[in-house]
């Protein structure tokens, strides 16, 4: 029994910060790639769910339901070991997280698009705008503003869920942390997890604050009642 085991464990964590930093870089890159892919899929999907008809709308809706109803762990394992979309663990993780995020983001944008008053579209059409033009210039700018709070939530979820890439051996933050104590070099499991958690917290906190500023910046003066 050590008298003060914590001291040496914290020293070990401090000595491993460079490795944790490498994991952090992977985590940030994976989050950015997944959110971006999710936006590219989710925004059009949300629009199709609101404005689309026919088979395309049904395909998009079904894909969303399946993706939202499947555990992320299952998605990532299938993509890596069964379908093998890429030999790169990073790419596979980004695709898995991006698909899942796209399914969630589609609902954020669906809600935001639907929340814009029908009269806005009607007014745009009545000055001779085509349907797509009216959606693009009148509905979307308002809907994007309203989607920021939902987007903040989604960002936080994706950031922390990047840790699931541990199951395919991607060296992101949590994987790096786990490797540090699993090699038997240290007993600092708790300290490492606390440090990793703190890093996740700082990341989510700062991005959420940044998105708060984005929200304020784009807020329409006087509110939104037209």
């Amino acid at each position, binding site marked *: 029994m050590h008298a003060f085991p914590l001291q040496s464990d914290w020293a070990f964590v401090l000595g491993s910060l460079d490795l944790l930093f490498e994991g952090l870089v992977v985590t940030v890159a994976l989050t950015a790639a997944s959110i971006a892919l999710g936006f590219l899929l989710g925004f059009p999907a949300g629009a199709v769910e609101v404005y689309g008809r026919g088979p395309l709308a049904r395909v998009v809706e079904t894909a969303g339901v399946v993706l939202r109803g499947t555990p992320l762990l299952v998605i990532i394992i299938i993509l890596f070991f069964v379908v093998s979309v890429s030999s790169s663990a990073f790419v596979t993780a980004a695709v898995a997280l991006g698909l899942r995020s796209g399914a969630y983001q589609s609902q954020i944008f669906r809600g935001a698009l639907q929340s814009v*008053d029908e*009269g*806005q579209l*009607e*007014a*745009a*059409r*009545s*000055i*001779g*705008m*085509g349907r797509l*033009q009216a959606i693009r*210039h*009148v509905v979307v*700018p*308002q809907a994007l*503003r309203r989607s920021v709070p939902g987007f903040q939530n989604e960002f936080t979820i994706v950031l922390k869920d990047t840790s699931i890439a541990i199951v395919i051996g991607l060296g992101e933050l949590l994987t790096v942390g786990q490797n540090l104590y699993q090699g038997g070099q240290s007993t600092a499991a708790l300290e490492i997890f606390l440090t990793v958690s703190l890093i996740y917290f700082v990341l989510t906190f700062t991005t959420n604050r940044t998105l708060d500023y984005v929200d304020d910046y784009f807020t*329409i*003066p*006087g*509110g*939104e*009642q*037209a």
Partner: protein
Amino acid sequence: MSDPLLRLDDVYKSYGDERVLSGVSFEMDTGDVDVVIGPSGSGKSTMLRCVNRLTEIDSGAIYLDGECVTDADTDVNELRKQVGMVFQDFNLFAHLTALGNVTLGLRKVRGMEKSAAREKGYEHLEQVGLLDQADSYPAELSGGQKQRVGIAQALAMDPELLLFDEPTSALDPELVGEVVDVMRDLAAEGITMLVVSHEMGFARSAASDIVFLDGGEIVEHGPPEQLFENPRADRTREFLGRLRTEHEEG
């Protein structure tokens, strides 16, 4: 040249089982200001919305400048460039300033350069007395100001015909005057207007013709002095009587 600017020919429209327009025929010429009156639910707004095809008719036909605009192959966007609309609930674009509201159509529909669109936008804001509010967003404006921006927005497209769908019904009573004044100015300038409204003052002084619509039919159609002073139909008399009583009580 002999074609009327707008002609409705035996127009029918139902929502489900409920018939809203029942064989409406009507015409007006360029420069006319026609005011449609009638009890609520009589089909006034529907009649207006059929003209720019926000609502599709079931049968009959509508002609603008002698051309049928209710054919399946009519380009509705082209039609709507010719026919402006002012809404009861304003429907200003919430994310754009007053100037942005007036210029959006100029830029995206008319394809005007930004600077030219701004210049024209300022012109029309001045026309409705709102040059000083050009940079205000809709939520920063009063109801009357919003509606004047709505009018400027429609005017900016240089339509052949302007439709007004109860433009003062959503306004506080003290704000009605400023909107009616603008409409009066437009009428005096010779802008062709088809107006659904209960503003009898405006109807009396600015209208070339009054159309009384009841139960989806045009009951009576004539100049204001005739329709208000010597209505031919009992239904018109009844309606006007009711309106006067309400007015006096109010």
